[in-house]
């Protein structure tokens, strides 16, 4: 997934930076390469400490990318990102220290994921709980989950669209991976139920915040950033609910990555044509660029989990897991929040596509070659394909990821 989105992000980056000055062009690509390498390291690391180091490295690379436009708002978002991520990463580090003290028994701790489950089973549950809470709060800066979600929302709003697409998908997945690996390692301990409660609480609060802010969002990219928060909330809830919710969580995070990347790429193209991200000044996109309008409408169907979107399958599985476990309160609350989210997304995207803008003179009317939009259709095509067919190797891959979790 990282490789696929690397290719599309680099392609859209070339288009976005076509008229950029050489110095910024070089800095952008150096930072992007550093980010991809750091994320690859975080995905492949086999110990808690190595994951932490690579996640910290992503903060530095992303900061350079957010500041690309050199505007006051970009500077503010960059500082905020560096400060909040540093605090978050420090909290995650405290969690790792707790874990080290708990499992080491006075010796040098081995925090590799291979040995961690066996060591955690013998550790003091109170310290494990504290470690988990610190880790989830710390890595929520990267996953974009409540309570440290604010920083990712600002970053996604300000960063160049290809970067927004990249960090609201693959980087959020890195945060999820860090939390998921600890969750898997502690799954056989007595704090399993506690972890599920924390995940569901965090997910519910993410949904609440996202649905509330999306209803008043007046910035097109900010709306998508809150949508990412909402989807990470769904993933956390699905993981916390358990059963087929595990499968739903992994499937949802994969499909969300493809969908959100496509939508953010399209936001970059819409900016070229409309010259604004402000919702009130956007409109008439169907007449200006029909292929882009088709992408927005298709993306809307995919992100709101309406069939034939594959996200329908993952959300349906999550609701089924809730019903099987008898958690009807969570089910109703989640459905209510998702209704608000769907309403907010529909009204805003339909406004961009069909309404007349307030200020037409702002439009840049720059030409966008429809060939540049093909990659977005391919990504949405994958999401729709996975609604109807999930190939056996794909299923086995997800099953192997969740294989170590209690049934």
């Amino acid at each position, binding site marked *: 997934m*990282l*490789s696929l989105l*690397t*290719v599309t992000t*680099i392609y859209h980056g*070339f288009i976005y930076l076509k008229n950029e000055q*050489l110095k910024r*062009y*070089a*800095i952008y*690509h*150096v930072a*992007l*390469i*550093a980010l*991809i*390498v750091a994320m*690859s*390291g975080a995905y*492949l690391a086999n110990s808690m400490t190595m994951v932490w180091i690579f996640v910290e490295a992503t903060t530095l690379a992303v900061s350079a990318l957010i500041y690309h436009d050199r505007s006051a708002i970009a500077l503010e978002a960059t500082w905020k990102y560096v400060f909040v991520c540093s605090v978050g990463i420090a909290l995650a580090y405290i969690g790792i220290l707790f874990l080290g003290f708990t499992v080491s028994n006075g010796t040098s701790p081995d925090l590799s994921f291979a040995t961690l489950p066996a060591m955690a089973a013998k550790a003091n549950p109170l310290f494990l709980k504290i470690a988990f809470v610190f880790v989830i709060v710390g890595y929520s800066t990267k996953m974009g989950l409540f309570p440290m979600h604010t920083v990712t929302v600002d970053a996604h709003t300000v960063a160049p669209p290809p970067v927004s697409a990249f960090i609201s998908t693959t980087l959020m997945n890195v945060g999820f991976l860090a939390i998921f690996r600890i969750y898997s390692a502690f799954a056989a301990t007595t704090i399993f139920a506690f972890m599920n409660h924390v995940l569901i609480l965090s997910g519910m609060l993410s949904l609440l915040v996202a649905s509330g802010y999306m209803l008043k969002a007046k910035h097109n990219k900010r709306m998508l950033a809150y949508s990412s928060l909402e989807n990470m909330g769904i993933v956390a809830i699905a993981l916390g609910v358990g059963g087929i919710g595990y499968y739903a969580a992994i499937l949802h995070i994969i499909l969300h990555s493809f969908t959100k990347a496509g939508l953010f790429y399209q936001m970059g193209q819409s900016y070229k044509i409309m010259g604004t991200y402000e919702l009130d000044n956007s409109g008439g996109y169907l007449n200006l660029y029909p292929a882009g309008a088709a992408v927005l409408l298709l993306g809307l169907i995919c992100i709101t989990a309406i069939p034939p979107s594959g996200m329908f399958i993952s959300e349906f599985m999550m609701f089924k897991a809730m019903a099987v476990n008898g958690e009807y309160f969570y089910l109703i609350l989640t459905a209510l929040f998702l209704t608000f989210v769907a309403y907010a997304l529909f009204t805003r995207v339909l406004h961009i596509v069909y309404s007349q803008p307030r200020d037409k003179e702002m439009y840049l009317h720059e030409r966008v070659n429809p060939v540049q939009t093909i990659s977005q259709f391919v990504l949405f095509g994958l999401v729709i394909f996975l609604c109807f067919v999930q190939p056996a190797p794909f299923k086995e891959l997800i099953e192997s990821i969740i294989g170590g979790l209690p049934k």
Partner: protein
Amino acid sequence: MINMLLIFFILSFAIGLSVAFIRSKVVIRMLVMLFAAMHVAFTGW
């Protein structure tokens, strides 16, 4: 596995450093495409 990872990191570092100092957009673009191809090949492997 470790060796492949090490090679990938070293090559990425070399490409990143080259991109930082080269004064041609065309060459930068080619290096970045080389990096993307390398990443896909590494992940595929």
